[in-house]
């Protein structure tokens, strides 16, 4: 019996009787991070990394039972030793390390190894079995230096401001938006935000992350003169009447998918900035190698080529079908949160 099995609710640790990132409500859930495809609402008790608790709470509602664990703190759950280690994906994202009878597993959730001022950097963890995402698991995905991407974004904003245009910058509400804001040069002009982004900004600030001043654009009058400003909004707001009221504008989407021209062009946006909170191909391979694991489970993304590549290099790799989505290339909101209200709340923390 392996330490983890994949059930129709998600990864289940039978020895410890808990789930990791279940996609249906369960009794005990360990959460790698607060994105909607990893943190499903309705479980009786959650455990998450301490820096991410405020963000998770912003999504799960005030009554959810969430136990925060410090990075590296070891907790015994029914004899299985559980610890959380930084995944570098978004604020409070964690790799879950499980130790049982000398066997070590790491479930990495979503992760990146590039630096990000809004979250704790990724920490390599040695293990026997490594569960990894493969969102950008093809050699075409190699991120350009982050400094260049942010210079491009700021230059684009500056040029728009000079031309009297508003810069509409689209990026996912949780994580990407804050990382973008942290990299903007506030001397260029005001930074306005969509409500969903501003809510997460508040959670980030509450957790002690420093962001330049932002202003919620929702309180502004119907037709606004925001010339020179940058508006940070979720992708699904693109093309909406909410977006149109900002007037003459240039549009851009920040996502790893923007590295491929076709993906940008079919959105009919002016610019695409290749900035991702996931590992690119070289970092993915380096991370897998660095884990020292002989057995690799490959989840969401380009699973087939990654598995084949690893097998050709002598690793015991297999594809694992989950409901995780990674970085999405569609316009759907990645909003998650209490859909129905506050029932099924338990104040029992995972222990």
């Amino acid at each position, binding site marked *: 019996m392996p330490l983890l099995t994949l059930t129709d609710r998600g990864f289940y640790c039978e020895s410890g009787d808990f789930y990791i990132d279940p996609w249906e409500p369960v009794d005990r859930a360990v959460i790698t991070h607060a994105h909607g495809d990893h943190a499903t609402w309705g479980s009786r008790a959650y455990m998450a990394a301490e820096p991410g608790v405020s963000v998770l709470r912003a999504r799960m509602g005030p009554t959810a039972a969430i136990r925060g664990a410090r990075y590296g703190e070891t907790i015994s759950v029914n004899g299985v030793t559980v610890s959380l280690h930084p995944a570098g994906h978004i604020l409070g994202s964690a790799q879950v390390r499980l130790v049982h009878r000398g066997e070590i597993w790491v479930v990495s959730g979503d992760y990146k190894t590039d630096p990000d001022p809004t979250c704790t950097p990724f920490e390599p963890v040695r293990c026997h079995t490594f569960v990894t995402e493969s969102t950008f698991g*093809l*050699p*075409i*995905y*190699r991120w*350009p230096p982050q400094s260049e991407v942010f210079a491009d974004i700021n230059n684009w904003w500056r040029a728009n401001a000079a031309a009297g245009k508003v810069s509409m910058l689209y990026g996912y509400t949780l994580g990407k938006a804050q990382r973008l804001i942290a990299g903007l040069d506030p001397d260029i002009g005001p930074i306005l935000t969509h409500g969903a982004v501003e809510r997460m900004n508040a959670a980030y600030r509450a957790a002690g992350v420093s962001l330049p001043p932002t202003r919620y654009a929702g309180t502004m009058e119907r037709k606004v003169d925001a010339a020179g400003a940058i508006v940070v909004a979720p992708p699904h707001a693109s093309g909406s009447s909410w977006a149109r009221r900002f007037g003459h504008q*240039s549009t851009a989407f920040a996502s790893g998918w923007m*590295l*491929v*021209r*076709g*993906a940008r*062009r*079919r*959105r*009919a946006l*002016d*610019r695409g900035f290749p900035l991702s909170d996931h590992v690119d191909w070289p970092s993915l391979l380096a991370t897998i190698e660095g884990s020292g694991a002989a057995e690799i489970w490959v989840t969401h993304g*380009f699973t*087939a*080529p990654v598995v*084949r*590549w690893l097998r*050709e290099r002598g690793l015991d790799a297999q594809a694992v079908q989950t409901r995780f989505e990674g970085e999405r290339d*569609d316009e759907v909101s990645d909003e998650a949160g209490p859909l129905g209200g506050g029932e099924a709340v338990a104040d029992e923390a995972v222990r």
Partner: protein
Amino acid sequence: MRAFARLFSAIDETNATSEKVAALVEYFRTAPPQDAAWTVHFLSGRRPKRLVGSRKLAAWASSEAGLPAWLFEESYQTVGDLAETITLILPDTGASSELSLSHWVEQRLLPLRGEDDDVQREVMVESWRELDRRERFVWNKLITGSFRVGASQRLVTRALAEVSGVEEGVIAHRLMGAWEPTADFFQRLIAPDTRDADVSRPYPFFLAHPLEGDPSELGHIADWIAEWKWDGIRAQLIRRAGTSFLWSRGEELLSGRFPEIEDQGALLPEGTVIDGELLPWIDGSPLPFAQLQRRIGRKNLGQKILDEVPATLVAYDLLESNGEDIRSEPLRIRRARLQSLVESVRRGERLILSPSVDVASWESLTQARSRAREVGAEGIMLKRLSSAYGVGRRRGDWWKWKVDPLSVDAVLIYAQAGSGRRAGLFTDYTFGVWDGDHLVPFAKAYSGLTDDEMRKVDQFIRRHTLEKFGPVRTVKPELVFELHFEGLQPSSRHKSGIAVRFPRMARWRTDKKAEEADTIEHVRSLL
């Protein structure tokens, strides 16, 4: 290469026409004439021939990147563009090239012709190492012969007019026909002296807009001439300096392909340009377009095919008469002169005047239009009698009013990923109609859906794939689409026994189940 790559990005990174033109103007102001000439050449859609096979390019790039062939293939499936796939997998070297575009084209690209694999490989790998990602992409696009950019010839013309102060129409005319991209050419292109020398050069074609509303909104029918809209090859027949030149609308010189038309040209007076439609034509009526396709592309035209499928130029307009450009004369006058010209040189039916559809009211014209298929036409052309012969597609004076397309409800059965902006999305579909209890493939269509619908259908395909054959997926037969097309022909080469012309998706019939789609018998009844 750097300046050209920067121009490409500037055009590629905006959807605003004015910004594209501004980028072009800035480029043309500073580029050396030799580079500018090549830029005009490429941006006006003249692509270099592919000199290196794609398999070879893929193999050399994979080896340079240290990747196995299967992984290159996986990557290509996702990117959907060979030039871009190569750009993305190659290691970055930190290099960038100051060398001029003309150097890259003339010293590197063109000499690849006829070189053996080893030399070609060395040149390619060396090139990749000298370029940054943006330059490499443009270079690969040139090498693969797939260079296209979001700037139409019209934008280039506008930018050149702005840079030179020469009128747009003059620039457009100078860009027609055959020319070599040299510094000399570029200087002549933007020269203020408007006397031009090239005897073979055609005029820019004037094109009609589709009529969407009711024709009665166009005013008095007496101000208009109606003609049949033919489905052939739009062409200009030129007689100058004792020689005939036949040009297609795609600006291809058709010399030697239609000898019977060139013979007619020899009868025309010096300094004549006729705009018309090339059609396969016997005894006063056209043959199906497919017949003409049998002739196109043949190297040797035997007497047999010339007898079976004789071509005719149906003359629409007279653009030049006695060496004088008469495009600004009203159509009424041009047509009268065309008529007497055609009558004076007519032998048989290889050059005829486009027949007018003479009706006294819009109602009778509407009736005439419904008979278009019977005469082998695809609708009606409406031209204002007072109109000049313009440049490009403009609203107002010329309209095309096609007959309603044929329509069939068919089921999506196979799908393949698209390329370019549709890369990684399943957007190329094959549709089937019922033949008894199974679906027989009947048409392929790629266009007609909105981006949003395309994404939804893509999602459906991913979740309902039954089988994969290479890049093709067999899809659970569930989605029904209303297909429109211009015509049907019996065909022995198609499984369904029918070939369709211009199929496209008119509507996603979410209200219909697969069982409610049309049958092959129904399709045959439309023949």
